[in-house]
């Protein structure tokens, strides 16, 4: 292992991020290598120095702003949910309205078949016996019914 590779493994050893087998091997090496022992000591002192560095603290105002922002996000989320629910409700209403319209159209009584039409589509015998006068009367009745005349 090169010096650089060993130094890098020492860095990981310092962090407790090596396997048990490697830890045992490195500790055995450290006992007999002053240079690596000195490197381990420097790593410890560096960590102590860094951990003593001041940590910036968040002001109370900044924390309050964070909480207000969280409230705003919750309100915006509720607003989005409300819009989605309204859209779903509108879609359901539309589907129901279409279904109702179609159902009503299917059950409405059909326009009565005019007598002259019935006569025209029945057997030849019936047609043959209806006089022209009778046919005309049927047509007139049908027209009167449609126009709403007495």
């Amino acid at each position, binding site marked *: 292992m090169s010096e650089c590779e060993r*130094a*890098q493994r020492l*860095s*990981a050893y310092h*962090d407790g*991020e090596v396997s048990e087998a490697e830890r045992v091997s490195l500790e055995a090496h450290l006992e007999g290598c002053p240079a690596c022992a000195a490197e381990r000591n*420097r*790593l410890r*002192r*560096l*960590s102590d*120095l*860094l*951990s*003593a*560095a*001041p*940590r*910036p*603290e*968040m*002001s109370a105002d*900044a*924390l309050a*702003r*964070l*909480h207000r*922002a*969280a*409230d705003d*996000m*919750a309100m915006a*989320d509720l607003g989005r949910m409300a819009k989605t629910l309204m859209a779903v409700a509108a879609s359901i209403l539309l589907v129901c309205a279409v279904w109702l319209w179609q159902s009503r159209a299917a059950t409405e009584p059909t326009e009565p078949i005019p007598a002259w039409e019935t006569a025209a589509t029945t057997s030849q015998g019936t047609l043959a016996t209806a006089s022209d006068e009778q046919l005309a009367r049927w047509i007139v009745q049908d027209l009167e019914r449609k126009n709403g005349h007495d």
Partner: protein
Amino acid sequence: MPSESGQPQPADAALLRRARHGDASAFHDLVDRHAARLFAMAASFVGNVTDAEDIVQETFAGAFRGLRAFEGRSSVRTWLTSILVRQTAMHRRRTTRREARLVRLETTAEPVAAVPSPTQAADTRIDVMDAIQLLSPQHRDVIILRELEGLSYDEMAEALGIPRGTVESRLFRARRQLQERLKGYLD
């Protein structure tokens, strides 16, 4: 850890589940628990209090939007750290380096209430902070996450989106640079 009333506080995962189901107070509790830590990280990442506040706000906004997508494969702490790291990267891409506008943590108009250290002189603390800020963003990130936040290599790999081996090598090189800059304090 019990609360002031002696009742055990809910775990982060329980708070997140409640927040996911619309419990606003649970999300506020998560903010209270993690805001200070995330702010300290962000301020160390960017060296600027105002930007750090923006990054933390964007972090919690991202967390709120991602509540339903959180799968629980990592801790809530690591998850929030990952979001913060991504927001910091986005911030860095947006921000150009204008030295005149960069405000050192110790001289900002909005003074940072640094934790007093009885064992280190003020100039030592400034030297350490300067040395961290002089690192490249990649090296600064791993040093902060490891030395200041105590994340494991696996947690750092997940938060940074890089292989574990890359974490290890970056940390090694970052430490070498810091050892060089701070050798007066280490010898």
